């Protein structure tokens, strides 16, 4: 079962990555990558990294790619014509991806993190946080500073007049 799921998700992930570099329109590339992130999150669940799978969808597909799509739309409107947006296709693909991810997460969370001597908390919030806030606390705090600096930098760079 796990092998079948791996092949499905891996093939879809590679197809979406190829779609990113082969589509002519940047909007199509961004949509293809968003779909690929869902399949990558499903692969994370197969690898018992449930928290990271959720963060992948939330942050990567939900924030970073939204930012990308905003900028692509901003720049595309003035340089090339976006012919006939097929929003129904996007919505259908998004629903399908979300549904597949929900099914996979529900199935994987119900299973135990067995094998290879791993405890039941591997991949959960508690498992990651027990390392994140103890051994890697300095890196965690520095990441917060990095995000603050990135926010300030992006605002300064994007303003028309300082």
């Amino acid at each position, binding site marked *: 079962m796990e092998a079948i799921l791996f092949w499905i998700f891996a093939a879809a*992930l590679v197809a979406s990555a190829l779609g990113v570099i082969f589509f002519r329109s940047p909007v199509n590339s961004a949509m293809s990558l968003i779909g690929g992130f869902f399949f990558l999150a499903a692969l994370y669940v197969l690898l018992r990294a449930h928290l990271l799978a959720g963060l992948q969808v939330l942050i990567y597909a939900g924030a970073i790619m939204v930012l990308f799509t905003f900028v692509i739309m901003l720049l595309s409107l003035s340089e090339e014509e976006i012919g006939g947006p097929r929003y129904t296709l996007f919505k259908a693909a998004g629903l399908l991806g979300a549904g597949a991810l929900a099914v996979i997460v529900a199935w994987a969370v119900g299973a135990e993190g067995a094998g290879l001597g791993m405890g039941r908390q591997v*991949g959960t919030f508690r498992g990651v946080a027990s390392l994140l806030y103890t*051994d890697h606390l300095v890196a965690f705090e520095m990441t917060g500073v990095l995000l603050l600096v990135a926010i300030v930098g992006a605002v300064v760079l994007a303003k028309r007049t300082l």
Partner: protein
Amino acid sequence: MPTTIPLSWYLILALILFSIGAVGVLARRNALIVLLSVEIMLNAVNLTFIAFARFRADTVGQVVTFFVIAVAAAEAAVGLALVLGLFRHRKSVDVDQMSALRH
């Protein structure tokens, strides 16, 4: 076909993804597609970390992936702000035309 996927399959998949991202960075002229390809490369690295976290039963790989996602978010924000500024100045996001430092 093994019932559990061996580590090497995940690593080969990450390698394929990284190569696709590298080709996208080198071959596409649109700066936004280049940034998207960089995101593909970062996700290939994330997949490698998660795979090793699973097969070495060590959660450190997932912690590192957490940091990589955060850094990728910061990098995407600043990179997109740069592309916006570049577009405002040059009216183009074609990386082949950005050759002011070359001459």
